[in-house]
């Protein structure tokens, strides 16, 4: 078994592969969740590609669906489909849709329209209680999700229902489609808002694997309230020329030169 750090690196490489071959996609926000996905899929989540629909499996909803190149990379590395398939991203007659769809092996929820993910995860968590199952549900939210009204309905609802089997992870990279979050519609400070809503909030460096592991491990065992992991991240993390550059939000075409540069930065090309 490779280290989680190595899995995160491979998630980033496959993300770049997919977006390069698709000639479009969202690299910035995909790279910012690579470490989160690596910890989830290779340390925390109970999922089995050979028993994909097991009713007791843990669930993941990628509410910021545009970051699916990274999700597909993680699923491929986990064994849900061959890693080479990421090159089919966004192509006609290929199963890797431009935004998540449940027909894709390992994908638990459709997303791509921001704001609906936390509610879907909340529904899964409620169902676990009703069906007396012990699976855990994770939802990854982006900055855009935090501006959608639907997200705040879900933020209100999860503590009301005392869903301690639900964990939200907010990929807070501070940049959105056209400009910074602070410019477009600032919502900081997040922590007091969420605490006032009844969430237990854990703030971490979203690229520090140990911090992520610790926060996610305790989130699984916390009782009586849902946990909100406020992960401070860097958009484009791992590829120098993309880091903190709003222009790499998407929908980006990578030149051959940029593609090589990115893979070199990630250590895939010596």
């Amino acid at each position: 078994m490779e280290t989680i750090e190595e899995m995160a690196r491979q998630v980033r490489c496959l993300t770049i592969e997919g977006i390069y071959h698709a000639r479009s996609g969202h690299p910035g926000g995909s790279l910012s969740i690579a470490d989160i996905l690596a910890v989830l899929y290779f340390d925390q989540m109970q999922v089995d590609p050979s028993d994909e629909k097991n009713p007791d499996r843990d669930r993941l909803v990628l509410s910021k669906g545009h970051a699916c190149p990274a999700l597909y990379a993680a699923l491929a590395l986990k064994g849900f489909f061959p890693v080479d398939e990421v090159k089919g991203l966004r192509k006609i007659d290929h199963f890797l849709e431009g935004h998540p769809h449940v027909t894709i092996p390992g994908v638990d929820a459709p997303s791509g329209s921001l704001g609906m993910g936390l509610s879907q995860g909340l529904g899964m968590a409620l169902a676990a209680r009703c069906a007396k199952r012990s699976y855990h549900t994770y939802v990854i939210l982006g900055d855009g999700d935090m501006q959608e009204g639907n997200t705040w309905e879900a933020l209100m609802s999860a503590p009301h229902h005392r869903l301690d089997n639900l964990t939200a992870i907010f990929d807070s990279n501070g940049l959105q489609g056209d400009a910074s979050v602070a410019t477009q519609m600032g919502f900081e400070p997040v922590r007091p808002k969420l605490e006032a809503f009844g969430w237990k909030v854990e703030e971490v460096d979203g690229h520090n694997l140990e911090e992520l592991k610790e926060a996610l491990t305790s989130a699984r065992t916390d009782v009586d309230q849902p946990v909100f992991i406020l992960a401070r991240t860097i958009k484009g993390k791992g590829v120098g020329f993309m880091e903190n550059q709003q222009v790499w939000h998407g929908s980006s075409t990578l030149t051959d030169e940029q593609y090589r540069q990115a893979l070199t930065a990630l250590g895939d090309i010596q």
Partner: protein
Amino acid sequence: MKQLSYWKRGEKVSLRDAFGRVLVSMAARRQDFYLFDADVAGGTGAKPFVSDYPERTLQFGIAEQNMMAAAGGFADSGLIPIVTTFAAFGTMRAHEQFRTAIAYPERNVKLCCSHLGLDVGPDGATAQMLEDLAIMRSIPNVTVIVPADANQLMSAFAALLDWQGPVYMRIGRSPAPVLSDGATAFQIGRADRLREGHDLTLIACGVMVAKALEAAEQLAEEGISARVVNLSTIKPLDRDELLSAARETGAIVTAEDHSVLGGMGSAVAELLIQEIPVPVTMVGVQDQFGKSGEPDELAEKFGLTAQTLVKAARAVLLKKEGRK
């Protein structure tokens, strides 16, 4: 175990009462469905279920978008969410959640909404949902059901629990005449021919079915033979029954408590114009918002009466004659 107990023909019963009754009756028979409510169980008719099965009721408060997307996630477990609210909130406020989090992944969610059409009455235009059929039937994977009376609603609910995939069902508000005695098996996608006729066919849904039967009686007195079809499944359409009506009677009048834009009449016309183009006249609300008033006053004001159907029948017959 409680048996489904039906009403007698001719009784006037709100479909909301039937909804509450069938929820409770079916809950005793099967454990696999849960009620999702947004603080309107008194309005949708679900109250008896909420009282009898609090542990199978999930409360979302006035937050329908969250409720709808949560239902999508919930259905993933194999348990069936029965999502209830007023039609305006279920089909508009939470429309995208229904489309993307339920219909797109074909999740097994049943959306049952009250407060539709002019039948809502005094609450006025904000709640009088006249666009829901147009909105819901245009989404892929969705089945759309409009029961005509209390007994049919109960049979329809039992049928939709056995149906795999997303369903939207209308629940009427004001007391409506019960059209048949006891149980009639409800088959999703099958229209019911309630009266034979050969000059034209009145195709109606919901509260307009009783009015179509009344109109057919009046037309018979004028020597016009009108067939009456209860089109209780708007999607998928019963093609055979509709094409037979066009072929055998050659003229169609549709009747719905809904806008004439995009609703049941449009669905019928879309099929016929491509298969057997015969004259069609649509009775419904003419691209307007509703207003306050009692349901029968509104029906009069907006032309949703048996009398309007009689006039529409005469008009469509003139078109049919003109073609010969």
